[in-house]
C-alpha cells in the first residue's frame, strides 16, 4: 500500500507541474499519465470441491501507466518512439499482488531519394508476471518474458503508380526465468516455449486509378523453437502467396481485401504439410462527422494458443465504433470474436482430440475531456472463453474501471 501512496503523490506532483510543461506545446516529446482504479471479477479461478464448478477469485485493482511519446520529423527522416510502462496492482491476489509491464514501440523512416525509402519498426514487450499460488495450487507459473519484433522494409517506387516493398522481420519470444522448483517440488522449465521467427516478404503495389490499388505478395516464414525436445518439436517453414485490393468506395467508405494460400511444412516428420487458404477484409465507414466505424474479419493458420498443438485454424472478426457525443465527451466500443479450431492430426499429444475454442470480447470506454490536458474515463470489459478442449477451462470475466488521464507535457 505504501508503494501506491508514493505513486499517487508522484502523480499529483506531476499534475501540478503539467500546465507549465503544457505551455511548450510544440515540443516533440509528450508524456501522458493514466491512472485507473477498478474491479475484476475473475483474476483467476480454481476448482472448488464444495461448489459446482470453479471458484472465481475477484479483486480490486489499480493500473498506473505512463506513456512517453517522441516524434522527430525532419525533411527526409522520421523517428517515432513510444514507451509505456504499466504497473498493475491487485488487492486480493496473494501472495504476488503486482504485475509490471513494459511496451516500447519504435518507428523510423528515411527517404534516401524520392523513389527509395527505408522503414524500420521495433516492438518490445517485457512482462514481469510472477508465479501465483492459491493454497497448494499453482494458478500461474512464473511467466516473465520478453517479446520483440523488428521489421525493416525497403520501398522502391518504380513508377508513380507502382511500388515494390522488400521486407524482413525477426521475432523473438523468450521466457526469462531460469528453471526452478514450484511449491509442489516439481522442476519447471520454460525453455521449450522460447522461439524465434524470421520472415521475408515482397509486395508489389499497382495503383489502377485514383481510388484503387492492387497488390501481389509473397512471404516466407521460419519458426524455430531452439530449446525444445525432439518430442515437442514445433519448428515449421511456411510459404505464402496472395493478392490484395485497396479500394476507396466513397468519401466515407474505404476498405481492403487480401487473400491467398499458405503452405506450412513441419520439421517434425510425424506431421503432414498443411496447406490452407488465408484471407482478411477490413472496412472503415464514417456515417457522420461524429462517428467512425471499422470492421474486420480474417481466416488463416495461426500460431496455437495452447502449447500441445502445432497450430490452429483461426477465424477472427471485430467491429469498433467511436462516437463523439459532444466535443468533450467521446464513446469508444470494440467487440471481437475468435474461433480457434484445433485438429487432432496436429496435436503433439496423440490422446488429444479435435476441439474448438470460442472467445468473445466486448470493451467500451467513455472519455470526458475536462480541459486541454485532463480527461476522466470509465471503462468496462467482458471476456468469455468457451473451450471444448480436454483439460482446458472455460471462463467469463468482467472488469470495470474509472480513470484519470493527464497530458503532462
Amino acid at each position: 500500500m505504501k508503494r501506491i501512496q508514493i505513486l499517487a503523490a508522484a502523480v499529483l506532483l506531476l499534475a501540478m507541474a503539467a500546465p507549465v510543461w503544457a505551455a511548450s506545446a510544440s515540443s516533440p516529446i509528450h508524456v501522458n499519465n493514466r491512472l485507473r482504479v477498478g474491479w475484476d471479477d475473475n483474476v483467476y479461478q480454481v476448482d472448488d470441491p464444495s461448489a459446482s464448478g470453479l471458484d472465481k477469485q475477484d479483486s480490486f485493482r489499480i493500473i498506473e501507466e505512463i506513456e512517453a511519446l517522441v516524434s522527430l520529423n525532419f525533411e527526409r527522416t522520421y523517428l517515432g518512439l513510444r514507451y509505456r510502462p504499466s504497473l498493475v496492482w491487485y488487492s486480493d491476489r496473494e501472495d504476488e499482488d503486482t504485475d509490471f509491464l513494459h511496451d516500447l514501440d519504435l518507428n523510423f523512416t528515411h527517404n534516401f531519394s524520392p523513389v527509395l525509402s527505408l522503414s524500420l519498426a521495433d516492438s518490445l514487450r517485457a512482462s514481469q508476471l510472477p508465479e501465483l499460488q492459491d493454497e497448494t495450487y499453482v494458478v500461474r507459473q512464473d511467466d516473465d518474458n520478453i517479446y520483440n519484433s523488428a521489421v525493416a522494409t525497403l520501398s522502391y517506387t518504380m513508377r508513380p503508380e507502382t511500388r515494390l516493398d522488400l521486407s524482413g522481420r525477426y521475432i523473438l519470444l523468450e521466457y526469462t526465468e531460469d528453471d526452478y522448483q514450484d511449491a509442489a517440488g516439481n522442476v519447471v522449465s520454460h525453455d521449450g516455449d522460447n522461439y524465434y521467427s524470421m520472415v521475408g516478404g515482397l509486395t508489389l503495389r499497382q495503383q489502377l486509378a485514383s481510388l484503387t490499388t492492387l497488390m501481389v505478395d509473397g512471404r516466407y516464414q521460419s519458426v524455430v523453437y531452439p530449446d525444445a525436445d525432439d518430442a515437442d518439436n514445433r519448428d515449421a517453414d511456411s510459404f505464402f502467396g496472395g493478392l490484395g485490393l485497396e479500394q476507396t468506395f466513397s468519401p466515407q467508405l474505404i476498405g481492403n481485401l487480401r487473400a491467398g494460400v499458405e503452405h506450412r511444412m513441419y520439421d517434425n516428420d510425424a506431421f503432414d504439410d498443411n496447406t490452407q487458404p488465408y484471407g482478411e477484409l477490413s472496412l472503415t465507414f464514417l456515417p457522420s462527422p461524429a462517428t467512425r466505424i471499422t470492421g474486420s474479419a480474417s481466416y488463416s493458420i495461426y500460431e496455437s494458443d495452447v502449447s500441445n498443438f502445432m497450430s490452429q485454424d483461426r477465424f477472427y472478426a471485430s467491429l469498433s465504433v467511436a462516437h463523439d457525443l459532444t466535443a468533450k465527451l467521446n464513446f469508444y466500443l470494440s467487440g471481437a470474436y475468435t474461433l480457434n479450431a484445433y485438429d487432432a492430426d496436429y496435436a503433439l499429444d496423440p490422446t488429444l482430440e479435435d476441439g474448438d475454442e470460442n472467445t468473445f470480447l466486448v470493451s467500451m470506454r467513455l472519455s470526458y475531456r475536462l480541459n486541454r490536458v485532463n480527461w476522466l474515463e470509465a471503462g468496462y470489459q467482458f471476456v468469455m472463453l468457451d473451450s471444448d478442449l480436454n483439460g482446458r477451462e472455460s471462463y467469463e470475466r468482467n472488469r470495470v474501471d474509472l480513470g484519470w488521464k493527464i497530458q503532462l507535457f
Partner: protein
Amino acid sequence: MKRILVYMMVGLMLATTAAMAQGKKKADADKAQPSQPVTHPQLADLLVKALGLVRFLPNAPSAQQMFDILMQNGIAPQDGWKLDAVVTKADLARVIVQALRAQDLVENPNDPQAWINVLKEMGISIDRLSETIQSVEALPEAIGQDVTMASTDPLVKGPSTVQYSVDLNLVVRVLSEMEMVSGEFRPISPTPH
C-alpha cells in the same frame, strides 16, 4: 531457407545502391524546377507522422492505409481522400482544423471558407504547408484499428492489445488447477495484459 534470406539481403543492398544513384540524379533535376503541388498521399504522410499515428500502421504503409487511419480519427477532406488528387486550400484548412480538434469552432461546416477562417482566427497560415503542419501535434486521444490482431500477414501480425482506445486482448489468461494438472497450456504468444 537461410540462402533465400541471404539472397534477399543482397538484393536489398543492390537495389539501395541503384535507387540512391537514380534518386540523386532526380533530386538534382528537381532543384532546377519550381515546387510541385502537394498530393493527398503526401499530405496524409505528413499528418500521420505529426499526429503520432504511425504506431497504428504496418511498416511502410500504403497511401490508402494512411487515409484509413486518418479517417478513423475523423480527419478527411470534404470529398474524401484520393490517390491522385492535389491538395487545395480548402482541403488543407479542413484537415488541419480536424487535426487540432477545433471543428466545433466552425460556424458553417459546409462552407470551405469557414474552415479557413477558423485557422486565421487561431493565427495559423495555410500559405506554406511545411509551416502549417507544424501547428499540429500528437493526438492525445488517437485511436486506431489494431491491424496486428486481424492480420494474416506474417510481416504484420503480433501481440497488440489496444483497439479504438479500449483494451482488446482476446486470450486473457485465467488458469485453473485443472489446466495445470492436465499439462502445459502456456500460450505460444505472450499475453501480458
